[in-house]
Each structure stands twice: as structure tokens, then as C-alpha cells.
């Protein structure tokens, strides 16, 4: 990611046989998730963090979901 953000975001996601973010709100603007280009998980201690590389059609974002803390974050953006 060319710009590291690590900012909390609000996300609408589908939880069905996995997690799929559908859109997210960052700084008052809503971004549609047009494509999940890649998904992976990592562990921080006992927490499983799900990472999504997503595109809104214009830019590429990395968003994460901490499955213990139930928190979404915008990790970074690549214009």
C-alpha cells in the first residue's frame, strides 16, 4: 500500500460462508467494493485478522477485520 492509514471504518459486509465486504464508509464518503482482488489472514496473538485487498473501480484499498475485537480498519490505499 502506498499510503498507510490504519483508520477505523464502517463496513457493510455479508457474513455467509466467510466474510465479504460490500461497501465501506471512510471520512463521510461511501466506497463500493466492486472487486475483492485478494484475501488473506494473519494472526496477532489470539486474534485472527482478515485482510482484503479491494477495489472501488478507481483505487485499491486494504481493509482488515479483526475477528476478536469485531473491528474494521482501512489499512492503506493505493491510488
Amino acid at each position, binding site marked *: 500500500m502506498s499510503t498507510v492509514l490504519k483508520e477505523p471504518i464502517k463496513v457493510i459486509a455479508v457474513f455467509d460462508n466467510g466474510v465479504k465486504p460490500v461497501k465501506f464508509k471512510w471520512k463521510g464518503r461511501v466506497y463500493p467494493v466492486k*472487486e475483492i482482488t*485478494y484475501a488473506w489472514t494473519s494472526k496477532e496473538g489470539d486474534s485472527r485478522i482478515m485482510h482484503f485487498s479491494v477495489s472501488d473501480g478507481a483505487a485499491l484499498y486494504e481493509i482488515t477485520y479483526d475477528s476478536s475485537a469485531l473491528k474494521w480498519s482501512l489499512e492503506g490505499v493505493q491510488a
Partner: protein
Amino acid sequence: MIVLHMDMNAFFASVEQRCNPALRGKPIAVIGSSKRTVVTTASYEARKFGVKTGMNKWEAKKKCPSLIFVIGDNRKYIDTSVRVLNILKDFSPKVEAYSIDEAFVDITGTDLLFGPPEEVARRIKERIREDTGLTCSIGIAPNKLLAKLASDMKKPDGLVIIREEDVSKLLNDLPVGELWGIGPRLTEHLSGLNVRTCGQLAAFPASVLRERFGIIGERLKLMGQGIYDSPIVPIGEEEAAKSVGHSTTLPKDIADKEVLKRYLLKLSEMVGARSRAHGLKGRKVSLTIRYGDFFTFTRQKGLEQPTNDTRVIYSLATDILGSIRLRSAVRLVGVTISDIAGGCRQLPLFEGERKRERLVNAVDLVNRHFGDFTLTWAALFEDDDPGPGVISPAWRPEGVKRVNVR
């Protein structure tokens, strides 16, 4: 025996091209950090221009002016590697993780479930592509040596099968250096004996090879014949660790010993935590140094009592560093404990030692719950975090293996 060797194609670069569609079809090179200058993996598009692993940034950019550098992210590669291994385990219980992007699978007798070997390979490729979007090359042969050779023969997205009856014809004119395990130096030594092809190696008198290369001499002759009997070692059945080590490539070459010590502390803690988690203690601590020109050496120090205590490991590693006169800036440092004593639940004799052991156990417990380096030694906070760097393809995803980060 039927061995399948799977090799992910341009692994780190391909993962990055999946993540970012704008990079697909373009020459890219994955590097460890913004300060690091060495190419870890190049995409096939970049390889066409002559960009190779190990090249520095400027060299690579000269070969390919349109080259795009991408900073790697280990977590992506580790997770992908584990997913791929899990796919392989659906086809056989005997899967050996050889490196982060390569594995051997014993598919002897799997035909009843999955059909003939080519069908198994096709299914594996399909599953990997579905799950990750990535391609791999697969080689199938009667042993590991030939399976590895087969997967190397067609890249990317290859499937090559070497049958017993084709072996001698295939190997006859093959340069010895193409064989797994025969590196440039060995190739040079062999060429000094006028041995250039596997056919020549196979026909060469064993006695001369033995005299020249010692015990590996006979093995070399057999390799020239395509004979190789090393078994597949499934994940979790590796031999008990003979050493526990970690090393890291520095974000830039460093000559200042005080700065190097901070890396040694971090590495000592990684080695200590890992050996404690597995109940291992070592009687020797060694320090590996690699200079900017890749000259690499290791020095070690012994201990009366085996240890897995971070502070003891660190103090020996810094002693060794103190005794070395660095001739140039350092590119990589590594800390290893070896001469492992198993079953080390021996009770410490003195109260002071017992206290330390309890402290160390508590630190490990906290870290296991909240992530590595949540609780660590104060000196690590003196400066910004050295960062993880990009792991080498020799890294293995499971087990207490020696982890080498090149």
C-alpha cells in the same frame, strides 16, 4: 514411488499481481522494504528483460526501465502458502513443505481415489487456481530429484512427467548443474574432472568421485543416473531440531555495532521464545554475519549449561560480535542455538534462576496471547522497530525448523 513436486510460479510477484490488477501483465519486482535494494522475486514479465532474484534495484532498473517495485508483505505469502499446503494435503497425507513456495507430495497409490498422476496434478492446479488465482509448475517422477527436475522444465503453469523408462535418455546430455543440489561450485569442480553432463557423471568411476568429494561422491554418481532415495518427510514428522535460529536481512547495510546489537536482541528473543515453546535448550550460541558483498561466516561460543534464555543467548551473541573486527558494513545477521539438549524440564537449582525462568515463561505466555513482541526487552524500544523484512523462499510455514531469512 511416485513423487509430485509443486513449485509456485514467481510466487511473491504473482501474489502481488493478484492483489493489484494494475500490476498484472507488467514487469514487477518484489523487494523487502523501501530501504532494501535487492529483488526478492521478479514477475515473468520482468524476467524476460533479465531481471533476477538477488539483483539490486539499479541493476534491475537498467535491465528493465519500466520495472515496477513492490514492497512485499510476508503475511500474504505465509497465508497463501499454508492454503496451498492444505490443498495438497487433501490429495495425500505425505506432504513435505520444502520452502514457502515448493512442496513434495508422495502420490504413490492415490490413483484409486484421484486417478492417474496427470489427473492428480490437473486437479491440484485447478484447486490452487480456484482458491488463490495463482499458477504452479508440477513435476511427477519416481523420486524427489527427478520430480524437482521435471517441475523446473516447464514454467509457468507446467506439468511434466518423467517416467522410469525415459530417465537415462533425458539425463544423458543434461548439464550436471541442472540437477537439484549441484550448485555452481560443484559444477566447476566436476568440470575440472571433465564431467559436464549427467551421462558423464553416471559413467564416471566411483572411486575417483569418492576420493575427490568424500562420502557425497557415490551419491553424485547415483544422481547422474537419476537414482535418489531420500524420502518425503511429511509436515510434523521432521527430525527433532538440531538447531533453532533466526536471521534477518537489515533494511540497509549497517557497520555500527551498537545498532547491530539491537537486531541481535530481537533475534535472540525470537530464538529464545521459539526454543522455549518447544522445550529445547542449546549448549552453543552462534552468530552469523553476511557482509554487503555476500561474504558470510559464523562464529560460535559454548556454554556449560544448555540454555534457551533470551538474555544468555543475547549476551553470547554480543560477546561474539565484540570479538569480530568488521571489515565492512553488515547485510545480514543471524543468531542460532545448537547442540540441542532435549527434554530440558530440569529444575533450576537456584532461586534467582527459578525467578528468571518464571519471568521468561510469563513473557512468552503474554506474547502467545497478544502477538509477538508485545512484551519484550527494553532496548528494543530505543529506536523504531526494525521491521520484519521479506522472508526468503527457504522459509517453511510449519515446525521448529531453522528459519533463514536471506
